[in-house]
């Protein structure tokens, strides 16, 4: 479904992504793992069109999207919950969610989705009128994820969704991801919590300093303790 072909991207002189290929098949969960500064976020930005490519191509269903404007890409159903939450701090919780569904024309659909998101995160419903900037860190994270879900994405890009969430909610998040996937949403997830992620991922890529150094089915990687210790910073 989503194909990333040999992309390069840089911030000025700093080459953040140096030629990577990623394949996100329809209906699967693909994980992108790797240590700090590996270039994961940059890759997601590139997919969403926020980061111009120096080289390479990104295709959705064989159609190149890498030269499209970010809002067009979002319109195609590729939606991101970005790193650092990036919620609209001066808007209320409810308004933030509504922006998430900007491309949706039908009001009923928006209301329905909002209801289901309140189902996932009851805290957000309690705080629907609160100015988002005053939410606690974790609450903001829930809002960022909720906002992405409001778009009813075909492909959901999650950048460290569990960041700042309490252990109980982290568990919830992975369950939600699994459930969305069951409902047919294709998911590309970036996480530090490698073990949890590999448990739900169909396939995973590991990045280091801008390159893919390892890939494989989630289960296979999970079994390979050496890999986990060496590249994923996990140990049992």
């Amino acid at each position: 479904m989503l194909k990333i072909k040999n992309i390069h991207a840089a911030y000025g002189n700093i080459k953040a992504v140096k030629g990577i290929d990623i394949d996100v098949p329809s209906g699967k969960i693909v994980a992108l793992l790797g240590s700090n500064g590996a270039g994961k976020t940059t890759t997601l930005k590139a997919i969403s069109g926020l980061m111009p490519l120096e080289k390479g191509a990104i295709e959705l269903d064989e159609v190149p999207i890498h030269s499209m404007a970010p809002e067009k890409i979002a319109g195609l159903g590729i939606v991101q919950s970005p790193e650092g939450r990036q919620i609209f701090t001066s808007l209320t919780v409810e308004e933030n969610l509504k922006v998430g569904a900007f491309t949706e024309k039908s009001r009923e659909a928006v209301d329905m989705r909002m209801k289901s998101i309140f189902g996932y995160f009851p805290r957000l419903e309690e705080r629907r009128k609160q100015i988002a900037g005053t939410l606690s860190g974790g609450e903001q994270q829930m809002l960022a994820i909720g906002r992405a879900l409001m778009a009813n994405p075909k492909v959901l890009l999650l950048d460290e969704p569990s960041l700042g969430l309490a252990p109980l909610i982290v568990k919830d998040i992975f369950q939600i991801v699994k459930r969305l996937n069951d409902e047919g949403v294709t998911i590309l997830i970036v996480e530090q919590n490698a073990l949890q992620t590999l448990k739900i991922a169909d396939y995973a890529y590991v990045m280091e300093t801008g390159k893919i150094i390892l890939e494989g089915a989630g289960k296979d990687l999970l079994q390979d303790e050496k890999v986990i210790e060496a590249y994923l910073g996990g140990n049992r």
Partner: protein
Amino acid sequence: MMNSVLKVENLSISFGGLKAVDDLSFEIGDKMIYGLIGPNGAGKTTVFNCITKFYTPNSGKVTFKTNTGEQINLLEHSVHQIINYGLARTFQNVELINDLSIIDNLLIGAHSQYKTSALQQAFLTPRARREEKEHRGRAMDILNQLGLADKANEIAGSQPYGVLKNVELARTLMSRPKLIIIDEPAAGLNETETEALAEMIKKIRDYYHCAVLMVEHDMGLVMSTCERICAINFGKKLAEGTPDEIKQNKEVQEAYLGKDDDDAEN
């Protein structure tokens, strides 16, 4: 009565109708690593903000033992004075000055230590030079300690998140604190990095002789570093005790940790 560096008594604050912190009391001993945990929105960051006077609580008392051994009520002082008494903090969302170098960011942390006036600094008097040199040296020492020395002259904005978190930690040390309070230091770090962080926190405590108050959701880190933990929910204290006591606490499990069953990794 233990020898405490910070004593929070009956702290309360509400926003509109919401009681974010509700009659909370706890106490941190000298050179202790203390954990504050609780579900999202429990009020942890708010507690930090009250202690450092970013918020003014509705009621309560925060007693701090300063560098000179004096006992003061922090609530009677204003934000920028807090650090002078030996209490430094980090932020949940990293707050560094992105277009300055890392060492300059550290020097901002030493701001309260400068004794020369703006005029002396403008005229580069010997005293001002000496002072600048001394603090610069100290900043390099700290960066060395934390393994960041090679990045000293990098611009903060171009560094990955993990590095920035450490720089923020380093910055607190510039003020020769008695207590540093850190908000979610491990967020965004992977397990190896988190372990390194745990070591670093312990090292900071031992090397710089300061107590640490930490909010963190990574239970691995909390349980392995903290000597005592306070768990809160809805602004109220649920339980306080050693890591083991907290782990076993039914209420804490229910509200925060989740049941142990599927937590094979722990």
